[in-house]
């Protein structure tokens, strides 16, 4: 079947799914296109400049920032609303066929396929950490999949990789064309052994670098982010601005600037566009429940909870935490015990979500005074008329984000 016909059918079915309120329609569109033309992604990628973005945390935000930076020059196809599996990628490429550029968020496990099909010019690798322990059991296994796939890259494809993360370094270090980045992250909760040889990895006392007796070590980065100052290989000094709060967001804004530069975009135009993005797919969106004005934040795994708790610490005094354990959240809640909730001390804390008792037990042992609410409405009753952060795990976040002001 001809690709354009498949896309037309896919879009029609997606529209039908949307108006019958079965879903956003994106997945349906993508699935149908792929079903009718299995080579659709490869065909839709031809003659386009494509950047793929993957990693455990920060995919959607980084993709969105890259999209806005690239869009200052030309039309861009993108899927930064988080549909990052086969169908979502297909739909994004099919929706906007005239765009000569595409910025695609890709699930970690889908990377080998996406690389093979889209033949990207640039691959952005953010980080690899544990996420949904009951499904992805070994971080190193994911890193190995990346490594095998990246080893086959042609030299015209550059890899822009985070040198702070030993798993990313290991996956990317054999690539011909790799650009290293550091934002000065300290340590890695899952990298106690060397990904290359398995013996204990030596971390420097300040946890800023790592090395192993086998020769595996942190590479020297070309791009370095210190605070909000980004310095590049040719003495570039760029002040990074972000309307999204937190150190992670600043790191992602810096990455987007480097990607923009690689794609030949004017840096100041890209920086301005990046600095205007204040919310991605509901993250940091506003939602009023009862009398409480919530700011929505997403936390998916120990690394992202740490990040979010730090960002939230400079926010309002009140905070509601929502923990679920559905398939998309990960059914195993033991990660709660790997998160130090101390940044919440002294704040007004409400624990809710389907696994509020697990959360409450954790907070109790962490000496964080809190109350338990059955749901966010109940939490709002407890909190009353004030500003509050609402930090939610995956399924709760996406349910609430649909109602939020972006």
């Amino acid at each position, binding site marked *: 079947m001809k690709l354009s016909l498949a896309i037309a059918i896919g879009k029609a079915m997606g529209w039908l799914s949307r108006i019958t309120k079965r879903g956003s329609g994106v997945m349906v569109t993508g699935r149908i296109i792929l079903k009718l033309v299995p080579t659709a992604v490869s065909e839709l990628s031809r003659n386009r400049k494509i950047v793929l973005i993957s990693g455990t945390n920060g995919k959607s935000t980084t993709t969105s920032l890259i999209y806005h930076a690239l869009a200052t020059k030309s039309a861009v196809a993108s899927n930064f609303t988080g549909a990052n599996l086969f169908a979502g990628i297909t739909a994004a490429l099919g929706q906007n066929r005239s765009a000569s550029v595409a910025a695609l968020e890709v699930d970690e496990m889908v990377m080998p396929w996406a690389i093979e099909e889209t033949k990207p010019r640039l691959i952005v690798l953010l980080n690899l950490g544990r996420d949904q322990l*009951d499904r992805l*059991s*070994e971080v*190193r296994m994911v890193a190995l999949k990346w490594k095998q796939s990246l080893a086959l890259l042609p030299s015209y494809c550059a890899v822009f990789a985070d040198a702070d993360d030993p798993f990313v370094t290991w996956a990317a270090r054999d690539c011909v064309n790799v650009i290293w980045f550091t934002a000065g992250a300290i340590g890695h909760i899952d990298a106690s052994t060397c990904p290359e040889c*398995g013996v204990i990895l030596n971390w420097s006392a300040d946890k800023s670098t790592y090395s192993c007796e086998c020769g595996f070590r942190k590479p020297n980065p070309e791009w370095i982010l210190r605070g909000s100052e980004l310095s590049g290989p040719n003495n570039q000094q760029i002040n990074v601005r972000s309307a999204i709060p937190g150190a992670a967001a600043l790191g992602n804004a810096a990455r987007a600037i480097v990607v923009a530069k690689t794609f030949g975009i004017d840096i100041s135009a890209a920086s301005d566009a990046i600095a205007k993005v204040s919310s991605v797919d509901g993250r940091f969106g506003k939602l009023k429940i009862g009398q409480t004005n919530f700011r929505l934040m997403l936390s998916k795994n120990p690394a992202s909870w740490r990040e979010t708790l730090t960002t939230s610490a400079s926010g309002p005094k009140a905070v509601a935490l929502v923990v679920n354990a559905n398939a998309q959240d990960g059914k195993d809640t*033991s990660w709660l*015990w790997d998160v130090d909730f101390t940044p919440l001390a002294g704040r007004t804390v409400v624990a809710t979500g389907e696994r509020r008792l697990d959360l409450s037990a954790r907070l109790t042992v962490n000496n964080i005074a809190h109350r338990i609410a059955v749901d966010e409405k109940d939490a709002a009753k407890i909190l009353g008329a004030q500003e509050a952060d609402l930090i939610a795990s995956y399924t709760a976040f996406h349910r609430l984000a649909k109602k939020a002001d972006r």
Partner: protein
Amino acid sequence: MTLTLVHLLPELLGTYGDRGNVEIASWRLRQRGIAHEVINVGANDRIPVSADLYFLGGGEDDAQIAAREILERDGAVRKIINNGGHIFAVCAGFQILGASFPASQNRTMIGLGILPIETLAGAQRSVGEILLKPTIDIATLSGFENHAGQTRFLDEAQPLGAVIHGVGNGLEAGADGIITDQVLATYMHGPAFARNPELADWFLSRKIGVLEKLDAPIFQQLHDERVASVK
């Protein structure tokens, strides 16, 4: 006398929130005003061999092998046992204490030989909620398991519990974990002590005798909710 709790190699064996069990044990002692200290032993630290209670958690392949090598040095774990220490071991930590355990590429690693068990590579991972009828006098046990290995006894031994739901040791044993004079081990990982406050107190009692009841309803509520969620 101050009680000493030792978390062995948390960076290597701590994948599933295992530090939680140490924190919970410490918290339960503190609530009762029982003086104690907690020591985290890293890969380059000397292992104290005359402490009271030891915790050994779960971990991935390479970490498990690295941990085995460290724990084997100077016969540290044997000394701990000889000195009267008690060990709570979970998942990879449970396997390490046996005669052998499996690793990637079909390797079989020699264990520390403390427990009369051997662990074989399972055909598929056992992942999910687990429920046990304990062989000791405490309430039904609730946990989450996530392991590829399956463990069998090489000698007559007492399991921690009979499996009501889930897999546990596997190999058709219908049981989970083991209880010996000085070791309590299980495949219930991470916050096993959070869900099972009676198990936490039972482990602490092994060293310090009868404990007064603790008024901390959240743990009882969590236990009951988890048990009910499976039935």
